[in-house]
């Protein structure tokens, strides 16, 4: 978090981005930057466009206007190799999306082996190291079907880290989990944040936002309405929509 160099190229930059689903204007003139090493939480009511926003960063969702840059590179440049570009971004889904026909280890080594064609020994060693980090070294040979939701999500994080991406995107990583499993996933995310990896997390976990992130971005109806440090966001929510959102969500935590 602290190794942000002032004035350096932002890791992710949105420049006047608009997106429509048919007539539905889901992202409206988004301008927003994430510096290298920064941890940003994106929150907002459902349907506010926060998942769409994060999915545009690795081109899972196309945009119709504006530009998005990853480390200074236009991600819609015609010369860009989209598959190579995506290897620099780890993505964690709400529904984990582990490959059910592969063991945990094979899930984590999928990208290094099949996409980057690295030697098996090296890929497996790193995969085991990652599984160790998410506390699941013992489950390397299990199939995802035998794991709890929290364990599956931790494997999914390890899988997303397997190519050592400089950026990690989390799309509501704890929303599909039973409450007692949220903690183990957040703990992994906290330790990642401390390691200085750039993170954008769409989440309703306000505790995580308060303790870990550098900035909170609040979205409503396709727009970024607040972009503030966590203290300012939680202590003095000056936007009425934010106050209503926090009032709705905080009693649950």
């Amino acid at each position, binding site marked *: 978090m602290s190794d942000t160099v002032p004035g350096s190229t932002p890791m992710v930059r949105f420049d006047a981005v608009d997106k429509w689903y048919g007539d539905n204007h889901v992202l409206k003139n988004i301008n927003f930057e994430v510096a290298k090493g920064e941890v940003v939480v994106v929150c907002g009511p459902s349907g506010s466009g926060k998942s769409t926003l994060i999915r545009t960063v*690795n081109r*899972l969702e196309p945009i119709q206007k504006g530009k998005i840059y990853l480390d200074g590179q236009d991600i819609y440049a015609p010369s860009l190799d989209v*598959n*190579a*570009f*995506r*290897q620099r*971004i780890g*993505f964690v*889904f709400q*529904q984990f*999306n*582990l*490959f*059910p*026909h592969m063991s945990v280890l094979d899930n984590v080594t*999928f*990208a290094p082996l*099949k*996409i*980057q064609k690295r030697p098996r020994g090296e890929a497996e060693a790193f995969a085991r190291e990652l599984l160790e980090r998410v506390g699941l070294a013992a489950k390397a040979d*299990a*199939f*995802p*079907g*035998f*794991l709890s939701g929290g364990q599956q999500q931790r494997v999914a994080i390890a*899988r*997303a880290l*397997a*190519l050592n991406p400089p950026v990690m995107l989390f799309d509501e990583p704890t929303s599909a989990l039973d409450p007692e499993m949220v903690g183990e996933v957040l703990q992994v995310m906290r330790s990642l944040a401390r390691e200085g990896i750039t993170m954008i997390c769409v989440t309703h976990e306000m505790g995580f936002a308060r303790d870990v992130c550098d900035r909170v971005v609040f979205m409503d109806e396709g727009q970024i309405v607040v972009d503030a440090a966590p203290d300012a966001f939680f202590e003095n929510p000056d936007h009425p929509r934010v106050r209503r959102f926090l009032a709705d969500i905080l009693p649950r935590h």
Partner: protein
Amino acid sequence: MIDLIREYWLTFLIGQYPNGPLGGLAMTIILAFCGLLASFPIAVLFALARVSPWKALRIVSGTVVNFVRGIPLLMLIFWCYFAIPLATGYAVSGFWTLVCALTIYEAAYLSEVVRSGIQAIPKGQLEASRSLGGSYALTMRSVVLPQALFNVLPGMASQFVSTIKETSLGYVISVNELTFAANQVNNLVLTQPLQVFTILACIYFVLCFSLTQVLGRIEAAIRRRRGLI
């Protein structure tokens, strides 16, 4: 009926072989196996074409599949019987004519089974592979197809069973298979057609039923290993 089996079991099993052409149950299995072996890769290619991002490919493959599914197999067999010699300039044996017709017919049906399997794979699986940087081809090959083919194993098994039964239509172009053998036996015995064809029915049933069972067990074992219910 026991006497019939005792006397003619070899004819039911292998036809006139070794004093004549191989036939009977052995030939039926070989025909069905050849049909499946040839139609499976074609079916997968057609299924991939039908879900591909390229519209022209979708239209062409869809037209072919729907056309073949819209004609009776018997007609297709006759058509191959007359068309293949014309197209290739060679006299083709009944065996290869039937294999060819079965392959075309089964490929069309099997491709629909495979396509439904591909389309039933949650979009998140595709997104997971693509977001790691996997190409479309790799995603199909390593993520979508292995799951889709496994999920449609029951459908493919029933398609294979249909193929076994459909080889009996080879009778109309005098292919030496099980039904043909039964008819030969019937022509020798003359007085017990009901018994002869009951034996024929039992053989088909035992073959098809045990195949379904074996495939069902293999599927269940894989499911258990992967922790899928």
